[in-house]
């Protein structure tokens, strides 16, 4: 197992290098810069812009900037934000916990609702439960997060008055529920669909038929054969969804004024605050890789037949 973990972690290095290279190059060649990204009508004076570019190192040759960036990155230094002049690591650290909290809550909601929904639907295919759960799943997949978030606000904050409509509050659960549900509905729907398909597939497998023909009770068949085998597909979906959820959260974070990494990333892109953009993307990618590495390890635990070359 330690060898497996080391190997999986080793495999992530080329991905990280590629991401660093692509992000750096992309944001160095696209038009627009931090100095020209002012507000409505408030253009900076040309001399200030020139000095700002010099101060921020934007006039240095591309290869020099990349070299400096890579050397600093190797030392864990993501640079300073153009906008706030603070270390990027500090800025990201402030956003990381709220982002993780939102992602975990959304994924928790998705798993707790989506997986049982898919299971129930698969165990009774064609039934009313199956059709109803799939309607929920399809709706969840097709609803835009922004619209869904707004509707949740209208219903639970404005109409029923049960929950606050926005903000981080004291970091408690009351402020977390609506954004987590708005973010979690889409992976919930996908999980329900995937679970249903996975369970149906296993239910029709030869070994399940054999188990049933041996006189094993339906409960035991499902408990010992179906769940374990269907879990690999479900776990894959959870890993992919979980990993990408942090990056997807931007719409929800903006809508609910949630202090996460997604909104930081988008703000930074529009303001061309390149060090923050690079740092945020790197953290999101690392999170994605970490989750998927954990999923790979979980495969082996669930099904020892799985081996990685």
């Amino acid at each position, binding site marked *: 197992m330690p060898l497996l973990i080391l190997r999986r972690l080793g495999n992530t290095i080329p991905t990280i290098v590629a991401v660093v290279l692509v992000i750096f190059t992309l944001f160095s060649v696209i038009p627009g810069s931090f100095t020209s990204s002012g507000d*409505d009508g*408030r*253009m900076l004076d040309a001399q200030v812009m020139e000095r700002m570019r010099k101060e921020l190192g934007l006039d240095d040759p591309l290869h020099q900037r990349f070299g400096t960036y890579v050397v600093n990155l190797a030392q864990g230094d993501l640079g300073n934000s153009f906008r706030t002049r*603070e270390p990027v690591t500090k800025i990201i650290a*402030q956003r990381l916990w709220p982002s993780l909290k939102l992602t975990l809550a959304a994924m928790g909601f998705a798993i707790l609702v989506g997986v049982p929904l898919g299971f129930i639907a698969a165990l009774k295919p064609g039934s009313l439960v199956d059709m109803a759960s799939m309607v929920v799943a399809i709706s969840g997949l097709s609803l835009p997060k922004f619209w869904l978030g707004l509707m949740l606000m209208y219903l639970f904050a404005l109409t029923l008055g049960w929950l606050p409509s926005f903000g*981080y509050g004291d970091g408690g659960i009351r402020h977390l529920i609506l954004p987590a549900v708005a973010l979690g509905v889409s992976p919930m729907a996908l999980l329900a669909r995937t679970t249903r398909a996975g369970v149906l597939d296993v239910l029709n497998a030869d070994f399940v038929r054999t188990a049933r023909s041996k006189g094993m009770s339906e409960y035991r068949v499902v408990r010992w054969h179906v769940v374990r085998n269907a879990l690999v597909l479900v776990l894959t979906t959870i890993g992919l969804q979980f990993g990408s959820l942090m990056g997807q959260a931007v719409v929800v974070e*903006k809508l609910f004024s949630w202090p996460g990494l997604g909104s930081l990333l988008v703000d930074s892109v529009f303001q061309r605050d390149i060090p923050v953009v690079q740092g945020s993307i790197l953290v999101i990618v690392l999170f994605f890789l970490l989750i998927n590495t954990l999923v790979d390890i979980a495969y082996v635990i669930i099904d020892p037949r799985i081996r990685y070359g």
Partner: protein
Amino acid sequence: MRKLLLAATALAFVLGGTAEAQQTPRKGGTIRLTAPYGASLGSFDIHTTPRAQDGIVAKILHRTLYNWDTQNNKPVLELAKSVSASADGLVHTFKLRDDAYFHNGRRMTADDLIWSYTRIMDGSKGFPGARYIRIIKGAVDVEKGAAKEISGLRKVDDFTLEMTLTSRVEPGFYFFGDTTSILPKEEVAKSTFGSAPVGLGPFKFVEHVPGSRLVAERWEKFYKPGKPYADRVQLMVMGEAAARDVAFRNKEIDTSILGPAQYVAYRADPELSKGILEVAEVFTRNMTMNPAFKPFSDKRVRQAFNHAIDTDLIIKRLVRDKAYRATSWLPIASPAYDKNMKPYAFDPEKAKKLLAEAGYKDGFELEWTTSQNESWGLPIVEAAIPYLARVGIKVKPKLVETAVLTEVAMKGDFQSYITSNQTGPDSLSTLRCFDSRTPRTACNYSGFKNPAYDKLLDDAAAAPDEAKRNALLSQANALLYEEAPVWFFNYNKAVMAYQPWVHGLQANATELAHQYPEDIWIDERSPVAK
């Protein structure tokens, strides 16, 4: 002119329902303001950031030598009790307040102003306020590294500051901007200053949740007796108009800046319409025409463009009346605005005639650079396209990000582009953007050249009194209208919705979201009145 401005501002107050002079302000409670401009709050070192979003914070935590008097539309002394000027109008002697304390408890002195202005001129940094401080004699030498001190600043004693300017201007226009705030040297030196700021403002910093909110509490040693009224200010970062709408209706916030869609809905609602504050801000939305593009080198073509579009209809239908028709460059709140000027009439036949006279009987093709902005971007361009097609001008929109638009303008890399320009409050510096001696990179984006116009500005700068100066600036503004270097679209009408328990809001023409929170108070109906 001043009377007209006073009347216009008073009208805005009456319409907004904020004329409550007879009520006694109530102390206590929390004011819940919103930061509506999308992005998170930036640095709290206000010298480093020119953004409107950060300006809201500046009004809470910091103070400048002058404030903007929102009722009379002019700068007024804030950190000084009086000022006297020499006969030539260049040397100004400020008697500073001796009761202004930073949030760390230290009293402000003349040294703090000198240090703050000198810091802003640090040539190795890109401090946006440098454009204002340059008006002080010797500031440019510091910027270039030729001097360490600004020669035009002299401390007479702890509370007397002598300031020598390079030209005869009203200093208030230069020293009321947030980027010229007075900061305490010893706090700025700390690495924590950017995230835990110390200022002279009416509220002191308590907490910042990045991307979500800022909390500040009453500064007990604030120099205005009895102010601020509220115990706390919460500033919520809420870029999404729809989310602000829900939060406002749910009484979770006290104020909300409205977009065109909400403006219509709030005006139609019998309750919400009672709490609307409107003001013509000092922003002119326009399409700049590049004379290097041959058709636009002819004045008749530029005038034809202004006649060809039904601007009023676009404002009414698309901008939902959340704008005032622009009659020239200077906005309504400008001291040199001429209310008798009439906008270009919608007259396609006249536009065709002018185009034919200029040799473009069959029209021409035009590339129109634009951002996505809903009020001065692609939707407006798309609405104008059919009108222009009717007179033979075939428009191809070119979509770019707002961040790119500035670069496009500065490089002159456009045939035409639409944007919103800050056009005040200082009329002279605003009109200098069309001075032929002003480089394109500074702000003469249209490359406008007209010797008669330049002379009018020079005469205005040398004018001995304000009335004469404003008369000359009005003439320059009228000349600009005639020359039509841009399509004069509209002046922004900023709209703020406020809850019935909120009092003391200001119709700030420089930026409505920039409220002086020490003047705001809430009555007992607020959910957070205690």
